[in-house]
């Protein structure tokens, strides 16, 4: 059996690892700038699919299908992002006689529409944030909604996702401008300028339920994930279980998620997202009809392999688990490592990874799409790896995260490791006292900067001592000479030039 991975980066590596363990061969695809990526090296075969721009490569269905045909693939796994929730791609994979590793295209289409999925929730009795099911016809309709439900409200592009096309409105005077901006973002990013409105639940938590369903009528939920630590509506840290979900709430969330699964004819692994307010009431947000970035925290706590299960389900096999087998153990936390500089307002930081030392030892897992010597291209999402820790309870997991962050070393690019090192020192994080606005508020305040700035004077002195000793050793060498004094500290500049012809930074 052979599987085409229609993706790149860490998720392509994750899928190839799963396939290797199942004895399934793999076919990778790559754009021009990904020629030397780990997913290309790890796959059995690899085919180029075009230039760097995603629209010409990873989003190009014709080229992906041509690579699948060239490699002789029997299955196609889309990963997340790119075409993972594109029903047309799923249909064309199936029309080409291959197996789609994901839910039926009809379920993708249904849950991909904000308005249709809200209707399904209403029909299946799952609570929703008060809001309009149909897109807004005009500003007057929006004003009428506000009259009835009050402020604040949230405007969302019908086709939106990943934080794009969302606008909060806290003041009536902002309504018209926000409506226009949400429409224009929806049009620009998703080619669909329809917008709907819902009540904004303040200081809520984003909690999602992992589900899995087979073609034989069986469906289970695998507990929840807490994803409230977000920057601009993008998840940054995820945990399992949620510190605010007890066994009773877990069961009620799980049953609500399964109602959505059954109502949509869903078959595969998937995620049903909810907002949970401070009184413990929950509201359906949307369903992600694919493998989720943060699936590892569930794998660690439930002792399962979601990639293996997803492939098995796509082959028509029965679910491996009954609901009563699925017992959580311990606590897991994932940090998304982005090539961004938290000290420079999260500016993108592509480039060559000159040094990469990963943490190891007990309870530490790294899912990575790069290695030392990799060039992080400027063309895609900046996530380069995920650090996942698992321990017997949340305090032990936080301590392990802190230890793993100490060991993790990356030079050449800036990463969000810097942010996480400050975050694990914040009381709110240690005490799990946060909501979806927590990180943005923290970043807007001086508090995080203060933690960043609170340098350990001993470490600072050691940095100065190390720098002058290193400079003394290098004194007399030509700056910029790629061979330098033979210690290799300049080779990366040459590497960047030869590999990309573009950016020394």
């Amino acid at each position, binding site marked *: 059996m052979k599987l085409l991975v229609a993706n790149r980066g860490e998720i392509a590596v994750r899928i190839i690892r799963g396939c290797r363990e199942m004895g399934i061969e793999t076919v990778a695809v790559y754009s021009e700038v990904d020629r030397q990526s780990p997913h290309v090296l790890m796959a059995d075969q690899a085919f180029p699919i075009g230039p760097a721009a995603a629209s010409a490569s990873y989003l190009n269905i014709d080229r992906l299908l041509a690579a699948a045909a060239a490699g002789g693939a029997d299955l196609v796994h889309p990963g997340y992002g790119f075409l993972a929730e594109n029903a047309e791609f799923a249909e064309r994979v199936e029309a080409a006689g291959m197996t789609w590793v994901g839910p039926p295209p009809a379920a993708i289409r249904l849950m991909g529409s904000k308005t249709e999925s809200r209707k399904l929730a209403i029909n299946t009795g799952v609570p929703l944030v008060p809001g309009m099911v149909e897109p807004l016809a005009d500003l007057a309709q929006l004003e009428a909604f506000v009259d009835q439900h009050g402020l604040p409200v949230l405007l969302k592009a019908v086709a939106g996702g990943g934080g794009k096309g969302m606008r909060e409105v806290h003041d009536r005077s902002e309504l018209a401008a926000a409506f226009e901006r949400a429409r224009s973002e929806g049009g620009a990013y998703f080619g669909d300028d329809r917008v709907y409105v819902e009540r904004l639940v303040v200081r809520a938590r984003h909690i999602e339920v992992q589900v899995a369903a087979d073609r034989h009528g069986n469906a289970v939920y695998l507990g929840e994930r807490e994803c409230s630590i977000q920057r601009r509506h993008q998840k940054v840290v995820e945990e399992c279980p949620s510190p605010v979900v007890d066994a009773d709430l877990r069961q009620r969330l799980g049953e609500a998620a399964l109602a959505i699964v059954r109502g949509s004819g869903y078959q595969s692994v998937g995620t049903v997202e909810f907002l949970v307010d401070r009184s413990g009431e929950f509201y359906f947000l949307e369903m992600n009809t694919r493998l989720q970035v943060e699936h590892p925290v569930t794998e660690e706590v439930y002792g399962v392999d979601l990639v293996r299960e997803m492939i098995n389900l796509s082959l028509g096999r029965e679910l491996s688990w009954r609901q009563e087998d699925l017992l959580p153990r311990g606590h897991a936390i994932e940090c998304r490592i982005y090539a961004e500089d938290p000290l420079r307002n999260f*500016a993108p930081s592509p480039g060559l990874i000159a040094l990469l030392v990963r943490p190891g030892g007990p309870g530490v897992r790294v899912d990575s799409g790069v290695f030392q010597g990799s060039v992080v291209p400027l063309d895609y999402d900046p996530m380069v790896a995920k650090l996942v820790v698992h321990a017997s309870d949340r305090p032990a997991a936080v301590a392990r995260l802190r230890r793993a962050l100490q060991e993790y070393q990356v030079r050449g690019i800036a990463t969000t490791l810097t942010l996480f090192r400050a975050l694990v020192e914040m009381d709110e994080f240690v005490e799990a006292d946060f909501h979806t606005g927590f990180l943005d508020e923290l970043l807007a305040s001086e508090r995080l900067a203060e933690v960043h700035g609170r340098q350990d004077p001993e470490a600072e002195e050691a940095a100065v001592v190390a720098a002058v000793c290193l400079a003394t050793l290098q004194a007399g060498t030509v700056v910029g000479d790629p061979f330098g004094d033979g210690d290799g500290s300049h080779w990366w500049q040459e590497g960047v030039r030869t590999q990309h012809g573009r950016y020394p930074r």
Partner: protein
Amino acid sequence: MKWVVRQGDATREVVVERVPDGFEVVMGSERRRVDLIRLDGAMASLRYVDGGQSFSVSYQRGTGREWRLAVGERDFELEVLTPVEAIEASAAAAAVGPSRLDAPIPGKVVEVHVSVGDVVQAGQPLVVLEAMKMENELTAKQAGKVIAVHVEPGQIIDAGGLLVELE
């Protein structure tokens, strides 16, 4: 050797001598024997001989005299200059000339908000650069008049590339 180490606005002088089996480092009134071993091109082990304090150092030298180091998990950015370089750097900083807006990151120019002749305020957006699916607004560091615009929308620019010059 004598070095001038700059970190942000702070400057200090440090004297380093190579001694058998390591270095002697004098900073202010403190004299330290130091054991430093480079493990490869980007990592080193640092140990103070007297107290036994041990540090794992990862480092990267920039294109000039800038160093980015991590000691344990803490990041530091330093400039390590010879005394002559330090004097030249101070002189250069004091000189007044046109203000340049360089691209801090490689990316694609999405928007250019100004034209030659415009008068801008400090903090005013000049150019929007896109990289890694993110738009980055670049603003004027100081007030001034635009005397040259070197890019146009759609153009790909390297890090350090000149975008706009202000008088």
